[in-house]
């Protein structure tokens, strides 16, 4: 839990750059795991569980798959392109009860705006706009417990899944 006496300004946050390394299927549940890899020389993988549709949207962008019609995040990019808005960066900025929060930093003619988003949407958009993806040091420090909770929640289904793989 946050120390209520602690104040944090977004400007003071240390940001660490990550890239999408791969999207894994969690076949036993309706989810996918987006694995982010640290880019500053240190080896670290940062997994985020996302919905199947959200994971698919990220996979399409990662593989630079061209779909016959624009998908939802292509449309967001198209809006940004039409209006001259650029995605400066996306930041995974918070974690509460095992849920990650992201902030999208936008810029248009020097006017900067931030928009709250789910990490899956933020990552999907970052890949399509070639915007960098960061995780705050604060989230990296606090993720262990968040990670553990996620793993524990998924543990049963995961074991079943592994057994199925081994047996087949």
């Amino acid at each position, binding site marked *: 839990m946050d120390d209520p006496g602690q104040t944090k300004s977004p400007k003071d946050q240390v940001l660490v750059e990550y890239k999408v390394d791969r999207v894994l299927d969690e076949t036993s549940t309706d989810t996918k795991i987006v694995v982010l890899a640290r880019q500053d020389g240190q080896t670290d993988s940062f997994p985020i569980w996302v919905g199947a*549709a*959200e994971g698919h*949207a990220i996979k399409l962008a990662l593989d630079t798959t061209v779909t*016959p*019609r*624009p*998908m*939802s*995040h292509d*449309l*967001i990019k*198209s*809006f*940004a392109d*039409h*209006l001259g*808005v650029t995605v400066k960066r996306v930041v995974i900025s918070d974690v509460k009860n095992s*849920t990650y*929060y992201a902030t*999208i930093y*936008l810029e*248009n003619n020097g*006017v900067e*705006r931030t*928009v*709250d*988003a*789910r990490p899956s*949407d933020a990552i999907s958009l970052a890949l399509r706009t070639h915007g960098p993806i960061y995780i705050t040091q604060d989230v990296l420090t606090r993720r262990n417990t968040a990670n553990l909770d996620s793993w524990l929640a998924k543990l049963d289904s995961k074991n079943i899944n592994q057994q199925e793989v081994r047996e087949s």
Partner: protein
Amino acid sequence: MITQMHMKGLMFDPYNNAYIVVLRDEEGTEMLPIWVGKTEAGAISMALENVAPPRPMTHDLMKSILDAYDAKVISVVITDLNENTYYAKIHLTYEDSEYTVDARPSDAIALALRSNAPVFARESVLNKQSSEELEQWLENLKPEDFGKLDS
């Protein structure tokens, strides 16, 4: 020529394992079914039912990005429905200029509902559709086929 359409409903199509967004004109003479995927149906359903999700869904994000720069959705036009490829245009205003953006009808409708923008259909799209055929098809749907979106 374009005709303003209203949301008549959203239903599950068990034969195609997909969802149908049913649009109807003011007089109820023209009906336009649009087949959409589960995720797209979910995005439309949430806006129809005014459900506020704990976190912004993709189309909520779409709207908040437009809001961040005071860009407004003026209207949405369904321009063509081919067998596999559906077309719509989203009309926006931003800083006294007008923009037209290509989109899938499902995204366009999901955004229009969140922006209180009207949805239109091009006449050629309506003409392609035989209303009689559709009504017959709808009649054959069982009541339990409706409202399955939550499951």
